[in-house]
């Protein structure tokens, strides 16, 4: 958990390094003892590669969220861990729901080695939110059936379920005919 000054130093270090530039790091946030870097979606691979060089070699989690009703709606968080100095940093990016495309960090590429752990996790984000990861080796639905329509964990997707049956509506249900 780098402290607030450490986070700012890291951000300015990344901005100064070539390949990333100042527009890539959109902001920093230090909240409850852990630091977050917000990056532009196009430069996620270079930022993760640069962080890997600085010691954050373990990608603990890739998860998505829906910031409804704020735009841009879809967010993807990458949790990085530096095992030797027990340091965590979060990298987050946001894409709008009309163009939900992000470079996948799973495969190796010209801008650095890939993170194989992101394989299933990016598939889950695609399944649940609809974020399309360019370059992912096998982007299919992972938790829902493959021919399912809709992205369940978006905030405007209904929770669904069966109506609770009381005496006033018990004959409306399918199932046990009386």
């Amino acid at each position, binding site marked *: 958990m780098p402290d607030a000054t450490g986070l700012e130093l890291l951000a300015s270090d990344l901005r100064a390094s070539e390949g990333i530039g100042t527009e890539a790091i959109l902001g920093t946030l230090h*909240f*409850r*003892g*852990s630091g*977050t870097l917000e990056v532009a979606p196009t430069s996620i691979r270079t930022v993760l590669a640069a962080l890997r060089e600085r010691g954050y*070699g*373990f*990608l*603990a*989690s890739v*998860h998505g*969220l*829906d910031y409804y009703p704020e735009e841009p709606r879809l967010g993807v*968080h990458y*949790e990085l861990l530096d*095992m030797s100095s*027990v340091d*965590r940093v*979060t990298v987050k990016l946001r894409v709008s729901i009309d163009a939900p495309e992000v470079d996948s960090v799973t495969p190796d590429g010209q801008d650095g080695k890939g*993170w*194989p*752990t*992101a*394989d*299933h*996790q990016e598939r*889950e984000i695609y399944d*649940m939110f609809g974020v399309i990861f360019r370059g992912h080796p*096998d982007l299919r*639905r*992972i*938790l*829902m*059936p*493959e*021919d399912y329509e809709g992205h*369940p*964990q978006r*905030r405007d*997707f209904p*929770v*669904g379920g069966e109506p609770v049956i009381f005496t006033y509506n018990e004959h409306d249900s399918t199932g046990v005919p009386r």
Partner: protein
Amino acid sequence: MTPSISEYRQREQSITLSALPTEAGEGDTHDELLTLNFGPHHPATHGVLRLLVTLQGEVVRSIKPVIGYVHTGIEKTAEDKAYWKVIPVVERMDYLAYYFNSMAYVGAVETLLEVEVPKRAQYLRVIHLELNRIASHLIWLGTSALDLGAVSIFLYCLRERELILDLFEMSSGARMHTRYFQVGGVIEDIPVGFAEKAREFCKVMPARTDQYRAILDANQLILQRLRGTCPLDAETLLGLGVTGPLLRAAGNPWDLRKAAPYSSYEDFDFKIPVGTVGDNYDRFAVRVAEIYESVKIIEQALDGLPEGPHITGDRKVALPPRHELATSMEALIHHFKLVTEGFRVPPGEVYNPIEGPRGELACFVRSDGSSKPARVHMRDSSFVNLQALSQMAEGSYIADMIATLAMLDPILGGIDR
């Protein structure tokens, strides 16, 4: 009326679902690759995991796990409920490590609220977490031994697990999914007699584990199935995001209880078992050794259990004790607001990792200032560990693949959420 089948269902009806070409070699029909479906229902009781295995003879060439057969939409349901109502929903994710699920979630909410957990509650949490770790390892040991053919170990492990479930029933009233951890502490203090019974269990457990090891460690069948099969080095495992006993078996002693202690783990003296080779036998030995270490932690926690409240005194977060409701108006109002609406959490995002029995179990909570979470995501260790299966088992026999799957300890509830 025959409904038209989607392309996915048509593909399901054929067997050529492998990513590899179906013919290897030219004109040599003995080297054909065959794709088999280890369907979601199979007796290797690790849950409803489906493996598409491409075989060349008896050798596994590629494995594609297909999951989602017990997907419950836990994260979606959790967005619909007040913060404390999410606890029972989230507990049912990794159904063998229910205290760990709730610990990760409750820890995240406590970080957001900046509420302090009293020392006694932290020790009680540690006792229950380590008991749950032993229970989870016992089921793993039982079902893995069942896979490898040692049926009696299954019954012995279930006998031990009954003792642990008795302890859980004593402290919270339920055997599984106990809702014992709440935001700010634990829901109730332990009753009289819990400490004695837990100490009895701690006296009995190492002797029983010695018995299991005596049966399994000297058994040539088990040793031949586990020794030297499907090793994977720590470097690859780290790239795949694997943590927990699998990583420790490969030699990397990463354990969040020591590296980033939470909930008073720094007060206890215990070792981290580490393997050398990273094969199936090391994974087996590391988990069995962890049982001994957990017993040590429980004994130390019982010895050093401090006096004090079992939940935070902040009435905006935790329910007031019932006797106060009769005398204090404020307590009544707090109780009412907490039960009907729930507490409001300041907006923010928090990622809270803990060390579960299978690795790093973390909970990400995003709150938008209301009384319901805006996003709850559980980073489950089995979900990430499953990606290592193909690299571990490719190139080995089917029997080794089954043994590796057993040693991987996947819990489909956590994988599918």
